[in-house]
């Protein structure tokens, strides 16, 4: 029932993207998600202007009474550092590490998944077997091994996340490639002499984009959780730079006396992940409508 409407010449990229963003209005849940994510992105971008204090500066006076005041709106932590400022700066950490990790994992995952699904045969077997082995590790074991061997740093966290996420993306992309490579337009491309590279990137990958966008969005959420969990377990970024998981770890022992120290960073990370998940759901819902 697609109406055949004459369209003006191909709109430019920015316009098309904006048209797609506007589509999200159809999904209230997606809008809530988009709002939460946009909020944290803005906070991260404008962190130096938003944060009222230096996130690593200890205020000795605050140690006596760390609860929220007019100066420290969300109170201070166990070392007298302003919690609001640490949360604001902490969003930078998360929103730098998570997208980078997801981007790298996607580049690798798409490439390997396309190759495995398109060529099949021995190369598929090899890629598949390696993915199986990585996937049979409980994620935490891998994180522990990587961090134990290489020590805690942002780079190593990214590596660990990429190591675990890539095989999952390979699976998705491979599955879709296996299906799409059987489409007649792929045969037509082969028959006019296109290279395998062209077929994978131009004929196959664009048609897998719908589910991949949704997955990428969800994965941003999961990666945020992973970064938080690693921080909480003491396997994340080295102190003193603020990271939300680490903030909870440092203050959790004082939970019964000063719950606000743990509560605010916990709310921060939860709201960002909820944002990503709701956004993913909204995108999925809208893409199913066409």
């Amino acid at each position, binding site marked *: 029932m697609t109406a055949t409407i004459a369209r003006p010449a191909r709109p430019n990229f920015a316009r098309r993207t904006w048209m797609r963003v506007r589509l999200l209005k159809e999904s209230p849940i997606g809008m809530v998600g988009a709002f939460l994510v946009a909020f944290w992105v803005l906070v991260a971008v404008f962190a130096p202007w938003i944060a009222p204090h230096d996130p690593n500066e200890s205020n000795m006076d605050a140690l006596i009474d760390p609860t929220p005041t007019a100066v420290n709106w969300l109170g201070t932590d166990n070392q007298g550092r302003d919690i609001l400022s640490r949360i604001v700066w902490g969003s930078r950490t998360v929103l730098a590490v998570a997208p980078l990790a997801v981007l790298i994992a996607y580049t690798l995952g798409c490439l390997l998944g396309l190759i495995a699904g398109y060529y099949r045969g021995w190369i598929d077997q090899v890629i598949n077997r390696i993915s199986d082995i990585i996937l049979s590790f409980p994620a935490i074991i891998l994180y522990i091994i990587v961090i134990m061997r290489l020590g805690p740093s942002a780079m190593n966290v990214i590596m660990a996340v990429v190591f675990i996420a890539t095989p999952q993306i390979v699976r998705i992309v491979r599955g879709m490639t296996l299906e799409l490579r059987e489409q007649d337009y792929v045969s037509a491309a082969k*028959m*006019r002499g296109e290279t395998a590279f062209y077929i994978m990137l131009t004929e196959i990958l664009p048609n897998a984009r719908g589910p991949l966008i949704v997955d990428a969005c969800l994965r941003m959420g999961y990666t945020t959780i992973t970064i938080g969990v690693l921080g909480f377990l003491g396997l994340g970024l080295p102190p003193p730079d603020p990271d939300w998981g680490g903030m909870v770890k440092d203050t959790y022992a004082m939970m019964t006396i000063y719950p606000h120290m743990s509560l605010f960073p916990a709310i921060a990370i939860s709201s960002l992940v909820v944002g990503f998940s709701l956004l993913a759901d909204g995108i999925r819902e809208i893409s199913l409508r066409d």
Partner: protein
Amino acid sequence: MTGSAARTVPGTPPGLKLVKPKPILELRNVGISYMVRAGELKVVPNVSLTLHEGEALGLVGESGCGKSTLAYAIMRYLGGSGRLSGGQILFEGRDMGKMSDAELRSIRGSRMAMVYQDPMSSLNPTISIGRQLMEVPIVHSGATEAEARARALTMLAEVKLPDPETLFDRYPHQLSGGQQQRVVIAMALMAEPSLLVMDEPTTGLDVTVEAAVLDLVATLRRKHNTAIVFISHNLGTVVRICDRIGVMYAGELVEEGPITEVFRDPSHPYTRGLLNAIPSLNADKRNSPLTAIPGQVPPILARPKGCVFAPRCIYVEPGRCTARPIETQFYGETGLHRVKCVRTRELPRHARPTAANANQAPQAEETGRPMLQIGGLEKAYHQSAGMFGGGGYEVHAVDGIDLEAGRGTTLAIVGESGCGKSTFAKVLTGIEQSTGGTVQLGGTEIGKTPVEARDAGTKRAIQMVFQNPDSTLNPSHSIGYVLSRAIRKLRGISARAARDETEALLKTVNLPTEFANRKPRQLSGGQKQRVAIARALAGEPELILADEPVSALDVSVQAAIINLLVDIQQKRGSTMLFISHDLSVVRYLADHVAVMYLGKVMEFGKVRDVFAPPYHPYTEALMSAVPIADPDVKRERIILEGAIPSPTERPKGCPFATRCHRKIGPICDEQVPPEQRTEGGHRIACHIPLEELKAVERFAF
């Protein structure tokens, strides 16, 4: 001349009361709508019809005309967003709109039952066949397990399924498509319903299997005196089953009446259009082009105010036809024939082409070397038996075929699913490689060369038109990109020159040049196939492979695409390999025909030789199975037993021996049949002598 056959019958037709006393189903001004985001979609605005005890009514029309919607409305099953927006549906005198859920449940499956289009997905994959059947008597008549079991076994035997006891414990995926549909029919008839609604019950089945299923339905219907609503897009199948026919267009019942009357004297222009679009008896690409209906079915929200068919009608009279909705009027002698057209009585009487007015044009005689020559071609797939079994086995999809096609001619390959015709095409394209024999294109051997390794000239020489319009074009690319990319790759010309060529190609396939900016989802099925043809033409190929290019299209669109293919081929002089299961299309456009079965060519020859005795027994069965859209054509029906064997269990002797109705003895099972040739190049692979094969009646086509 106008309306000589029509007799005005004002008001109620007098004949109606005489025919059959007991109406089973009455639709009174039924309207059906779907609520969507855009608002209310009136899929069926207003339909009235009556069905009497034991009567069979066929509903035909193209896709999107509301026939399936109507069928499900009769079962009062419209899903979450559908509803009955007006009128009444009376079943056995009771208003279904007023029934409670419990009442509905008590008649569904017992008084009215349904048979579906896709039997495989209509049966629950995790419950055994027997259990699924037993549910019906257990739910409806409170039968005990033993009673239900006995009843299920009786029904399985009644639908002529072999060995009901064994079948009882089978799961759906273990049955062939034809067997699955028999199970669905058995399930529908378990409680002896008075009404059976069949929604495209044979679409997707092979033609010989279809014939057997239709035969079964016809028998059971007489036996149980069941009324049937039979939905189909194929006029031929309706003729086999039904007493009456209703033609639907854009949600309206535009013509309805006794089947012989409607076929002899179709009075709505749309009905005529449907009939004309089918390749008629003895018509041939050289003497008469097919008549397509121009345009396409309008989207529901854009339906015209007056006659819904007016925008596509060749008889349209602006004003009279387009001003206001059209009333139904009665027509013909019996008063049972009604039509929704204001000009019915002014139209010239429809002339059906007959064998008499068709003159056989001389066949194009090919000259010089054949363009395509295939010798002993084999394609086997290796099936590994797993890690422990070792070895594995070979599946021969194509098992030694010899064929040739002359330059500028059309070679058609006919056969049912699994006969290897698509594998054959894949070998030609280079997507798959042969495992034996030769394939020569203009003298170059290409059978074992994968497409990546073919030189530019060979790639350019062979192009293909695919079956499925939805997968033939990349949904991410615009039409203009698709075409210009193909032109640039195949001809190696600049992007600017390719743009002009793109416009030229679009014109060649009769599409407006603005289509270059569109994406495939903005096109209809027929338009997509046109683009696919244009893409195949981009490199000006010498050989066009067309793998079932029209089988997914509606009949009116099908005709236009066939005309286009014939036209292009004649203008460009390219060779065409046309793969199809549709014999009437093949007879219309082929010069040579090869009939394939389980990877072998059973019969090969010029089209007039293949379509005349002597027939190979398989060809004979195929021809007898094709449903002909003409109630006056009576032909002997050969019902084949069993299903097509899977390529893994290929018989040792003649591949057709397991189902052959003319099997002469063990020789058929044990020895590969000899190829018998006539002087005209007609070949038949059969143990029965040609003289004997000749002694059958010629099938009209």
